[in-house]
């Protein structure tokens, strides 16, 4: 959580200065982008699938009240319990109380962004429960005392050497940087936790209203063990992560796997509907679904409702040139990358510098092109920037500059005079047709880039002259 306390620019600088992070980010995002492209190329009509996915998600959100009622009633009818959590505090309290009443000692967790968002582990550990993250990447992050930096690959910022050291220190692994050996070591350690855990906490990829089920998607098998071995399963779901019917998964799962990792389907998709039935040989005896609001019901009525369509695939992170350069931690919140620059200011408004996140985009649009449900991320970033201006969260110098700019662009005289001054000034600064230094704040440009001098005569002037000449020629 150290990332939250320092300013956004410092986090960015730190990320850009970190050589091994830069290498890892480049390798990981390249791989994700290539795998995704290869998987999409095989599909008959991926854009049609995207359109269907967007419609399915929008439909569920349009009737979210009804969909949640249907989902919760069906889960309760199957013997599951549903807790409506207004915020992180309510969710944490419910889960801590549950663990206490059920005399839980060890809790295994599979990856859940929602539980990261509400800092669930901190609350459980403060209540003296042993909490073990079981996704390999999350486990590594937990051993290191860090936070995830990517939705799909939480520890892409760590090298194998760093991970080897962690495993040697915490698990007594002999020195090696062999990845299969490290993986086996983690498997062995985590297997013991699964066998003795009393409670498993998972996230939810989709809640399926009419089936009364939650869907958990993964590749490792840790989520299957988390939701099968312990006697209590707690699923934490943001209220927007729903669809109406089981057949919707025929679209959503295809979009999710291909967009996230380029797989045709993820290795394991568990569709879970309440506790085990009386004659089922295994599975949890208790099933609890936490419906987490935590700001989402505000978002659905605002200008950013579309962000709730997100299926958390991470494709926009991998496609984003800014994310590729700075990685997830620089964003400071649980959700990083382009979608994080929208969700974090909305879901974690208390974080430092959070209004600056929408500035961390060149608005290139690669995120929207990659999004499996076609979320208009750049348009929303622009709206968030406008909100920040409207709320007065801008530098005075920027406000003055913009007011001046607007005046100049509306007045032909001011525009012409301003252009002349700029032309004069920049040509004075230019050497051999280029400018190597501009005064602050424009020195930010010339730090690593030259700038061209303004033209001696503008296009407007040259065009007027051309027209006069043409008229003179009698054309």
């Amino acid at each position, binding site marked *: 959580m150290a990332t939250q306390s320092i300013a956004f620019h410092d986090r960015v600088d730190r990320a850009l200065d970190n050589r091994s992070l830069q290498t890892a980010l480049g390798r990981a995002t390249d791989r994700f982008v290539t795998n995704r492209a290869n998987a999409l190329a095989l599909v008959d009509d991926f854009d049609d699938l995207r359109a269907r996915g967007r*419609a399915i998600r929008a439909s569920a*959100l*349009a009737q979210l*009240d009804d969909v949640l009622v249907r989902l919760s009633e069906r889960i309760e009818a199957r013997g599951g319990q549903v807790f409506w959590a207004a915020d992180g505090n309510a969710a944490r309290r419910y889960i801590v109380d549950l663990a206490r009443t059920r005399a839980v000692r060890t809790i295994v967790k599979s990856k859940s962004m929602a539980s990261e968002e509400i800092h669930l582990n901190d609350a459980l550990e403060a209540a003296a429960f042993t909490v073990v993250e079981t996704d390999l990447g999350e486990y590594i992050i937990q051993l290191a005392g860090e936070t995830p930096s990517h939705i799909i690959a939480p520890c892409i910022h760590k090298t194998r050497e760093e991970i080897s050291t962690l495993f040697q220190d915490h698990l007594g692994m002999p020195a090696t940087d062999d990845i299969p050996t490290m*993986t086996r070591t983690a498997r062995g350690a985590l297997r013991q936790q699964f066998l003795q855990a009393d409670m498993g906490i998972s996230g939810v990829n989709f809640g399926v209203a009419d089936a009364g089920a939650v869907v958990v998607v993964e590749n490792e098998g840790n989520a299957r063990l988390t939701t*099968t071995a312990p006697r209590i399963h707690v699923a934490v779901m943001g209220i927007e992560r729903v669809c109406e019917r089981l057949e919707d998964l025929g679209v959503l799962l295809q979009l999710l796997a291909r967009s996230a990792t380029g797989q045709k389907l993820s290795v394991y998709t568990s569709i879970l509907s309440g506790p085990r039935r009386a004659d089922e040989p295994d599975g949890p005896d208790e099933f609890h679904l936490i419906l987490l609001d935590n700001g989402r019901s505000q978002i659905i009525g605002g200008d950013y409702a579309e962000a709730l369509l997100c299926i958390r695939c991470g494709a926009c992170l991998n496609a984003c040139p800014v994310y590729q350069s700075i990685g997830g931690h620089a964003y400071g919140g649980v959700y990083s990358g382009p979608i994080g620059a929208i969700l974090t200011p909305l879901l974690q408004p208390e974080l430092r510098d959070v209004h600056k996140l929408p500035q961390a985009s060149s608005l290139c649009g690669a995120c929207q092109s990659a999004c499996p449900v076609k979320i208009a991320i750049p348009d929303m970033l622009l709206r968030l920037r406008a909100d920040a201006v409207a709320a007065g969260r801008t530098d005075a110098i920027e406000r003055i500059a913009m007011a001046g700019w607007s005046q100049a662009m509306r007045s032909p005289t001011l525009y012409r005079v301003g252009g002349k001054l700029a032309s004069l000034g920049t040509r004075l600064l230019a050497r051999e047709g280029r400018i190597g230094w501009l005064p602050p704040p424009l020195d930010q440009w010339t730090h690593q880039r030259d700038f061209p001098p303004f033209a001696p005569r503008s296009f407007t002037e040259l065009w007027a002259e051309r027209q006069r000449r043409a008229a003179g020629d009698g054309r």
Partner: protein
Amino acid sequence: MSDAREAMLGRIRQGLARNREFLAHEALAAPHAPPPFVHPEHDADLADLFATELRKLAAHAHLCADHDAARATLRDILGAAGVHLALTWALPALAFPGLDDDLAAIGVERRDVAIAPTAAERAAELRALEPAAACISGVDALIAESATIVVLGGAGRPRLASLLAPLYIAIARRDQVVRGLGQAIAQLQQRAAPDLFAERSSLTFITGPSRTADIEMTLALGVHGPRDVHVIIYG
């Protein structure tokens, strides 16, 4: 608790009063029905297509002419892996005659799963199952274009029998293979109408061996679930 529920639903309805029109409009912009399959259709036999796709995932497909050949294949796989203990679906659920005799013949102990509800018994039972080197299940469908094994939970169908051991063998009949996920879901719902989950708590799709690329994006198999996946298709 119902207060929290009503308050949340109230906030959602308030929000939707403003944006329901936009969302409903987006909801109508495209059909919702899943395509039966998503890759271009071609002539390959579906079982062959399944086998080809499964091998791409570093798993093993065995296409057997008949039940006897499938039995022989199963014995070979277990024998080659030196398995002594296997946990399986209950025999009636598996519906694969001869399994018990075959396992006994090659010295494999077969174990049913029956997890008791109390904490202590649960942990003890899990510990007893954990040493199993193999798990064996039937399937409810195979999806050819993604090489996906579909298994429903229910009586005699433990989830752990496709999960706990490093070696997993799924036994399927040729007529259980469908082309795509859309088809598979439609078929399951039809078969178990009106409520797929009336008598079971889980439906699981398994696509290849357990895998992770969390360390330096390097693929490693068998991180939590089975590393070696075999699918025997017969008939």
